[in-house]
């Protein structure tokens, strides 16, 4: 697809436009919060605690009187950073593994990589986080490592599966006739043909990463106070839920809308990028 055709199709896809807009709102909130937030999130204001939403505090305040909107903006930094690094780990390790396994299909190396992948799948990121925390104590790094490790087999499998089908195509034979070796073919011919899949899977893993980070922080295995994080904020709200339900509502919506945005964007991208789906008009 040409660049102009891509842009045209992108603008026509309702999912993609809505999803990207939502994602951009939160990305912008995270970026702005580096420079400015309505209130300082480290500033406690005990007399002004548990205020309901008002003109001065749009989303109200928490049990320490901190401004919830400001905390959500700073929390977006945490969520996005953790998810980006975790997807980066997954792609950075998983894609080369998948490409290598496809080159040496059926070899011992392929077998070891794939069995290793299966094994990692038996450890949901929560279990990895539990083990790391039990030994090293809780930290944001745990969340990143735990989610990142779980992402590796996702990308490795996807890449291997797609690469295997591309290796059977005639243009690979052509490249071999021209004397190109497996590494060069993987980079020149295989990788460009799997990037679409990787982009789509990347957005999905990104949204799963945000969900996982929130869950880990919620149970105290991820980001530690005082760093604001959406999961942490929900954990704080739990005991006060009947007293101050707004504390639970806003961070929850932040997670919901970010993940929704990323998923919609992923679906939209898949519709445009996956020629198989485009052809059948689904």
């Amino acid at each position, binding site marked *: 697809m*040409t660049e102009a055709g891509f842009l045209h199709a992108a603008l026509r896809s309702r999912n993609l436009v809505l999803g990207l807009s939502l994602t951009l709102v939160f990305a912008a909130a995270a970026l702005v919060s580096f420079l400015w937030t309505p209130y300082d999130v480290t500033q406690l204001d005990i007399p002004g605690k548990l205020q309901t939403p008002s003109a001065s505090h749009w989303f109200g305040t928490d049990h320490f009187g901190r401004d919830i909107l400001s905390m959500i903006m700073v929390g977006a930094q945490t969520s996005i950073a953790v998810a980006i690094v975790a997807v980066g780990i997954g792609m950075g390790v998983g894609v080369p593994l998948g490409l290598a396994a496809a080159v040496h299909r059926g070899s011992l190396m392929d077998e070891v990589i794939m069995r290793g992948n299966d094994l990692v799948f038996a450890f949901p990121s929560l279990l990895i986080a539990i083990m790391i925390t039990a030994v090293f104590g809780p930290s944001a790094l745990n969340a990143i490592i735990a989610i990142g490790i779980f992402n590796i087999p996702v990308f490795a499998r996807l890449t291997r599966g797609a690469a295997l089908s591309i290796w059977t*195509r*005639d243009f690979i*034979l*052509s490249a071999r006739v*021209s004397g190109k070796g497996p590494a060069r073919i993987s980079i*020149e011919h295989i990788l*460009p*043909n799997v990037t679409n899949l990787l982009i789509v899977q990347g957005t999905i893993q990104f949204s799963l990463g945000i969900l996982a980070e929130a869950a880990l922080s919620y149970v105290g295995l991820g980001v530690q106070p005082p760093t604001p994080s959406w999961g942490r904020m929900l954990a704080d709200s739990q005991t006060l839920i009947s007293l101050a339900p707004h504390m639970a509502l806003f961070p929850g919506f932040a997670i919901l809308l970010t993940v929704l945005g990323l998923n919609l964007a992923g679906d939209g991208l898949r519709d445009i990028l996956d020629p198989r789906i485009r052809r059948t008009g689904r």
Partner: protein
Amino acid sequence: MSLLSIKGLCLSIHGTEILKDVFFDIAPGEICGVIGESGSGKSLTAFSVMQLLPRGAETSGEIRLSGLDVLAARESELCRMRGSDLGMVFQEPMTALNPVQTIGAQVAETILIHQDVSKAEAMARAAETLERCELPNDRFPLGRYPHELSGGQRQRVVIAMAIALQPKLLIADEPTTALDVTTQAEILRLLKRLVDEDDMGLMLISHDLAVVTDLADHIVIMKDGEVVETGEAATLHKSMQHPYTKALFEASGHQPDRTATRIEAPLLSVEGVIRDYALPRTSLLGPPGHFRAVDAVSFDIRRGECLGLVGESGCGKSTLTRAILGLDPIQGGRITLDGRDIHSDAEVRQKMQVVFQDPFGSFNPRHRVARLVGEPFYRLGRSATEAEIDDALVSVGLTPSDKYKYIHEFSGGQRQRIAIARALIIKPELIILDEAVSALDVSIRAQILDLLVDLSVDHGLTYLFITHDLTVVRTIADRILVMQNGRIIERGDTETLFDAPTQPYTRRLLDAAPRLPHV
């Protein structure tokens, strides 16, 4: 009174007009061949009769099948008609059967849907029907699954499903296109026999004029959604009026104008080449078995000649190609190009290039034509210059500006030209054409064959022309090798081999190949 009558059939899908005023009749017991190239609307005509059209399809006109007004019929009437009055056989036997059901259950289903019989009786009748379709029950029990059968055998199951209730009309949509030539002949003979036995009407759809002309009573030629010519099969080549029909006959029997300029020195010699594949282990301890795909094959190609290598799928010709190109190691023998061993001396491989069959899979869709065509230069350690790319494109009848495009912007025939340009660009001496024209419509195929002949003269090229299609190889090859089960079983000059084959297998191949009456 006709069995099927189509009048003024128009079809549009999502507003795009596909069929325009299609008309023809089929009488009981008559075989009607419907011919057209891809996109001519022949398959959609069949699906209109079945009323199994894609979403968004709108039809008008009239289709009557033994009295039933198909276009006006309710869905329940259509369900009663499909399978009992009207059976259908599809092009792709590999995907036409449900992979998780046994063949017996799938044939019996046709009976169970339409008749109130017990499951046991339906199975017994399914067994009979499979026998009629030449799948004897002792070798192909009802409990077999589709993946345990070959393509030709699956196609017989599909036919059994279609004829289980002895329908009045059978529609066969390219039933043999995906099959080998000998299997094709068997399936066609089977269809003919069933039609005679049951006095069925048969609508035989094909892109191949020769396949249909042998068998059909009546021929309908379609182009761009319209019927352009109809006539008796036996006399159509004399009575034809429409220029497209004439072009079709001309292209099918197309003989490129060539003069052999053969020099006796061998360019490529293949001596006793053996290629084994390891089989998956069957037992944990025993040594892994192997399959000998190429078994002590020897031949020479002389400079300037075109050598045809003919064989059916699985005979080892693709494996041999890969060995000659140096892509796979060989387990015995020697391959030399211009006197140099291609396995120990990789540099000599720059003197040969290859063109593959699939015009859609031969190019990386993410690269522009300039990069695609320039790829062989990798072996020379430099990239192609603009001028070299332009020359290559011009020499295959394209324009220099095409180099900025992506491959999906080209038609099948144009892609095959680009594949030839890619093969030509580093000025090789030998080009291996691996089923290079097999996927093309006949008219396009004729153009590509002409191009190949012109290029061989202009550039002094030698060809190894690998194909399953005897008609094509006869028009272009100087000498022919026939391959079966990994061995070369017969070789000789083209005319000698065609006129007086010595091996029974060669004779069978030649007999199976459909032939057109001489125009």
